[in-house]
């Protein structure tokens, strides 16, 4: 596009809506009959493919050894073949009849998904013996709770689905199976509860997933970035959780969940900014405690974004704001520091982030060492060397600690990054810069949407009814309705008499 054209596009409205979307590519020809030769040709150079021939019975087996359950394979397929009796083989072939396949493409896909292809004369069958090596169910590393269930989703899509099904024994829990990634063909399950969910979200999520045309999707957090309403925002627009109880609570609240094969995180949609501040154990504690902790998290949010910035602003421009008694201590500790507060703060903030990142990448035992070394280096040496003031360390440390109070790791990481922007604004423009920064964040947030619903729900649009499960955790008898954001056709969720 020439410059003048681009400029014109920015200034003048388009006269007619132009579409540059190609027509959908025609569905792949799927009618080819499955043959052994074609299957082997398809898997040529795949050294891990197993091809076994039983010429006596005119049977050929093609499968991936590492994807199959050895026991099942041996019991259903190999034993009859190895026993050599025609009767057994005939019985086996009879058993296989329901698994007959007529399409070459389906057969190849099924073999890739852990099936065993059995070629018997002109016929082909695929028998599912899928059983990859999988991790056992364990505790979530990122979303630990003190009270409440400790199990977390695993990378195995069916295990994750089973954990949800075990908690929701309802035929209304529906599952849509989708596939994403042109090479990876990753399975994605969309889950919802019929009659509770608003189907527009299910349809929209399905549409967005089907529109993804990429080679591979490796994790839920990767998938959701393809589905975002606002791709350039720093904030996560879908909630992800590793906890089955959390996802089940989202489902019964009328939200849609999505499981991606190979990822222990499960997504929930639509979501709002405030939803990232609640954790499962708010519900497992007494409501007053749950409410207090929730409020504490919002205070933590304010501390995270403003504490260091306020220090920079006050020590750069507004010394008058510090009371006389405190001023002595502050000037004393600042007097040895040769840098302006902005550099001092940025230096410390970057160091803290380095420590955090190093701690996250290292094994737990070495991670602890990093904590001690970092603690001593930052806490003592930096002050003694005159690189930073004591009070700044308190500010930086408390805002770092506060950031970890936010239960969602993705949200807390976003907020930590924003903090740097605020520190710089405070360093250049003082309190006004700080206020400008907060205004910019609010303006950005108010334009965000999650699946077309406002990201600032239930503050804007103003739904005070929902506040009792957002800013506090009211007693269960007070939580009678599903959140308005999920616009559920079935609003009442709790009919318990008080």
């Amino acid at each position: 596009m020439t410059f003048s054209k681009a400029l014109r596009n920015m200034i003048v409205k388009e006269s007619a809506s132009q579409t540059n979307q190609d027509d959908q590519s025609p569905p792949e020809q799927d009618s080819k009959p499955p043959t052994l030769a074609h299957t082997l040709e398809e898997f040529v150079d795949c050294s891990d493919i197993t091809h076994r021939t039983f010429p006596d019975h005119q049977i050929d087996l093609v499968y991936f050894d590492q994807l199959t359950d050895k026991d099942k394979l041996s019991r259903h397929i190999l034993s009859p073949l190895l026993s050599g009796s025609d009767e057994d083989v005939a019985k086996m072939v009879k058993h296989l009849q329901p698994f007959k396949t007529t399409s070459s493409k389906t057969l190849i896909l099924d073999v890739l998904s852990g099936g065993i292809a059995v070629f018997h004369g002109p016929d082909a069958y695929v028998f599912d013996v899928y059983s990859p090596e999988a991790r056992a169910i364990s505790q979530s590393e990122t979303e630990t709770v003190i009270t409440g269930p400790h199990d977390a989703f695993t990378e195995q899509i069916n295990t994750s689905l089973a954990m949800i099904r075990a908690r929701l024994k309802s035929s209304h829990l529906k599952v849509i199976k989708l596939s994403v990634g042109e090479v990876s063909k990753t399975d994605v399950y969309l889950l919802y509860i019929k009659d509770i969910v608003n189907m527009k979200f299910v349809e929209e999520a399905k549409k967005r997933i089907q529109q993804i045309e990429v080679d591979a999707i490796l994790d839920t957090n990767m998938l959701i970035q393809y589905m975002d309403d606002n791709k350039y925002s720093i904030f996560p627009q879908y909630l992800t959780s590793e906890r089955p109880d959390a996802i089940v609570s989202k489902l019964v609240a009328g939200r849609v969940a999505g499981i991606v094969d190979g990822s222990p995180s499960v997504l929930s949609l639509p979501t709002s900014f405030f939803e990232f501040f609640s954790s499962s154990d708010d519900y497992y504690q007494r409501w007053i405690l749950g409410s207090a902790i929730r409020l504490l998290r919002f205070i933590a949010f304010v501390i995270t974004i403003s504490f260091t910035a306020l220090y920079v602003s006050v020590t750069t421009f507004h010394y008058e704001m510090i009371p006389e008694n405190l001023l002595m201590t502050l000037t004393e500790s600042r007097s040895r520091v040769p840098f302006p507060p902005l550099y001092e703060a940025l230096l410390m903030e970057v160091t803290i982030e380095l420590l955090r990142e190093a701690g996250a990448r290292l094994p737990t035992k070495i991670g602890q060492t990093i904590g001690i070394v970092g603690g001593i280096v930052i806490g003592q040496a930096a002050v003694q060397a005159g690189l930073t003031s004591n009070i700044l360390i308190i500010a930086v440390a408390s805002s770092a600690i506060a950031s970890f109070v936010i239960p969602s790791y993705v949200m807390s990481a976003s907020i930590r990054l924003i903090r740097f922007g605020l520190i710089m604004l405070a360093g250049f423009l003082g309190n006004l810069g700080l206020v400008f920064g907060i205004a910019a964040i609010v303006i950005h947030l108010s334009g965000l949407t999650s699946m077309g619903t406002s990201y600032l729900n239930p503050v804007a649009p103003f739904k005070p009814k929902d506040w009792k499960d957002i800013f506090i955790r009211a007693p269960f008898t007070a939580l009678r309705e599903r959140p308005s954001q999920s616009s559920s056709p079935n609003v009442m969720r709790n009919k318990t008499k008080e």
Partner: protein
Amino acid sequence: MNTETKEKLSPFHTTILVHMIQTGVMALILPQLLAETFGTNGWITVLGFGLIATINILLIGAVYKLGKGRSIFQILEQSIPKFMLVPVYLALAIVWSMLGCMAGKEYILIFQMYAFPTTDPMEFKFIMDLLVFWLLTKGLYNITKASTVFFGLFVWMFLLLFFFYTDFSWSRLTPFLFKGGHFTYLESMDIYSSLLGYEVVLLMFAYTNKKTKFVKSVLIGNGMTTLTYSYLSIVTFGVFSLEQLKNKAFPVLEMLAYIRFPFMERMENLLYGFVLFTVLFSILMYEWCALEVLKQIFPKLKANFLAFIVMLTCFLIAYIPKTLNEVGDWLSTLSMIESGIAFGLPILLLVVLMFQKMGRSPAHE
């Protein structure tokens, strides 16, 4: 932009938006103006001014009802040829964009005076205009959503007035009414201008439906502003004596400077910073009005481009007045014109609507 055509304003958002547009820097100067113009117990007049604003809103409400929710552009363009309207539109756009621009510059200059005497105020103005431009491109629906959040970030400041209950003395309110003031029409217009801002709802007709309960919401918004201004004025009149009040440029800011916590004091510039949240909307909505009018003049140009031009022009014009006094003069003149528009435009629209009704009635018979 897509949501804007679909989503209509809710009553709550409309109320908050009107309140946020009205509340602005003038709140900080208001008690001084009241003391100077009306003397003792001048705060009572705020209620009177609020009443005038209410009448004006009812006038706008009549246009809304008679026009059956059509936008004012539809009403005007049905009866008056467009070439005649273009100069009117242009004039309105100029007044509105300048009002927004000067309100912004005033806020910045006061901040500069308190905290950054050596910094070029236009640096701050640049960032402020960026924020306004950003909001302007988001459309009215998102603006109202933002206004609700900003309202939450701002409204707690009224709680700070509790700090002055110990310094408050009823004797300063005196039983005398309106003594010691020097009444001028010009100053009382200035006082009235602190309530201006409700008239921008004239351009919001197209964004409402029945559920908005438009007139009621605007009236409540105006009521909130009137009451908060009155409350603020009572407290200020009770904390300072009349003579003190007359001689203070920004009595509310000085009051805020008295607040002290064990870990922080003299927070007036931080608190004044929070006033930005509401000033932003006073500026923004005038610029939005200018933009709406310009969209009618230049239907082929993109809204974002027009918004850019409006903000650029405002930024450049803001270079002209250098001091707070100059800005005050500009604002006085502009708000006088704006008061005229606030009453004149609805009356004009009502006349047009009546002609339309008269013209239509024979066809029905």
